[in-house]
């Protein structure tokens, strides 16, 4: 049986490293992309079960990345966790309009991020895209 695949999109190496390490330890397969554009390509190719993405990134930011994922039939239903240092300022736009599943504020606890990811993955797919406040 293959492991559940998680795509981590993060331009800050340290954060990508932390998330990848935590999720690999928890038995996930982790693929990493450096910005939204690269994330989009990897998502289409790898079809991950979950995407964890930073908000502030070069080329394509996390919100736009999520919007494009949602516009594509193959990636529209993938649960999406947005990591952001902007707090709740962008929550309405992210969850309501861009289709983000949940927002996790930076700095985050890897332990809590993993718990939220597991919670999200254990849910039926149709409930995932709806708004959920962290």
């Amino acid at each position, binding site marked *: 049986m293959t492991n559940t695949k998680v795509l981590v999109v993060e331009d800050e190496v340290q954060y990508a490293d*932390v998330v990848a*390490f935590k999720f690999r330890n928890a038995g996930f397969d982790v693929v990493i992309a450096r910005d939204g554009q690269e994330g989009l390509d990897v998502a289409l190719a790898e079809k991950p079960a979950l995407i964890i993405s930073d908000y*502030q990134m070069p080329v394509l930011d996390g919100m736009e990345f999520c919007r494009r994922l949602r516009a594509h039939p193959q990636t529209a239903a993938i649960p999406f966790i947005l990591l952001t*240092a902007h707090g709740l300022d962008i929550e309405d736009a992210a969850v309501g309009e861009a289709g983000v599943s949940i927002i996790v504020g*930076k*700095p985050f606890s890897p332990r809590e991020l993993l718990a939220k990811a597991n919670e999200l993955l254990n849910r039926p797919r149709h409930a995932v895209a709806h708004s959920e406040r962290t």
Partner: protein
Amino acid sequence: MTPLARRWQLILAGLLVAIAVVGGVLLAGPAVGLPVRAVACGRVLLVLLIAATAVLTMRLRAALKRSFAAIAGALGAAAGQDFCGATPGAGATDLDRRIVGPEIVDHLAAITENMAALSRQRDEQKLAARVAQKRARHLEAVLRGLPDAVLVTDGMERVVMINDAAARLFHLPPEDAVARPLVDCIPDRTLCNFLRGAHNLPVGKEIEYSLAAQDGKRVFSVTVSPFADGSGENARGAVTLLRDVTRERAAARMKTEFVVNASHELRAPLGGIKAYLEMLMDGEVQNEQTRERFYQVMQGEVERLGDLVENILNIARIEAGIVKVSKEPVPLSGIVQEVVESMRPHAAAAGIALNDELLPVFFHVYADKEMMRRAVLNLVSNALKYTPRGGSVLVHMHVDEAAGEVTVGVSDTGVGISEQDLSRLFQKFFRVESSRKMASGTGLGLVLVKEIIENLHGGRIFVTSTLGKGSIFSIALPLVRDTQPVGASERTESTRSIP
């Protein structure tokens, strides 16, 4: 009647009686048989009497004329006008008291005095009017010259006064605006509605409002206050003051942004430390090598945090006007080398090639080593921040012995800076809008570098950049010609204030 006039009157009457008597005798002479010799004498006497009468009449007439002229002159002088061609300046003293009598002279003196008082009063009024006019002109000039826009309206909401700043703001020639209805002068409906009816308010009111001005959109604090000039119910009006607060608001916004940016900056390394620490504590790391890597990352983050706090503190010290500088001759390439080496892991992690072309160590500059290290570090760190993955950063040095100057240049293949942004690059809290997404920052790094290089070390900082291609930040410092001997005695320490 005066005694002289009476005397003259009696003499004149006597003369006329004498003429009548002599004339009667002469007429009756032939009838009564008056001797020829007596008739001849009578005729001579008659002629003498007539002549005396004529002379006396003429003298009396002349004296009267003179007196009237003097009266007219005195009145005229008192009134400040020339009456009937009378000699101005002639006064009561010129009167012939013998002719007009002392009562008239006294009356005339009183009239003259009253008229002089009236004339003085009139002069004083004229002077007061001139002073009031001058004061009004001065006040108007002050009002007109005020940098804040002032607009005064009356109870009918017509413009009574508009100063130059208001005229410019509303595109009105000041003289054309006066007496025009307020609604015709202020094209902005919302603002106009706010100002309307203000003259009937018990107290003034205030809003903050954005208006389009010649140099873009500006924020104004608009205050409108009712006034009554005390001359009745209809003398109410309103004075509107528009103060441009764009700069204050921008400064307040920049300060808030600074706090937000600084917090973000501080939170990023803290977040890293927290995450790695949590994994170590959770026992996620079994492998010694990985544990070692985690410690290194955490140490790096702690250093990053320390640098950031130090930058903020340095700016605060500069803001407070006091900064401690400890200068000595130091080899600049040594400092640059240290910085480059410390940044290599960051460059590698960001996928950027960090190269250097440094000078031999014997080129010294007179500098505070720590400050200089901080300045160079800021430039290299900036270059890495704004260069995309796959790019390169080159730190190079150059010496111009003729000019006695050594230069450190940091070139990158990064995003570059537009010409417009270049002019604001060294402004406190300024951050290039398009680069905000690329990296976080406080907008203080370059301010600090400029202060260190130019104010503390008498050097220069200059930038050349092409948008989309990259930038070159250079610092030039005076070269220390003879570094031998370098002793502790040459070390100087000073606390200086930065203007």
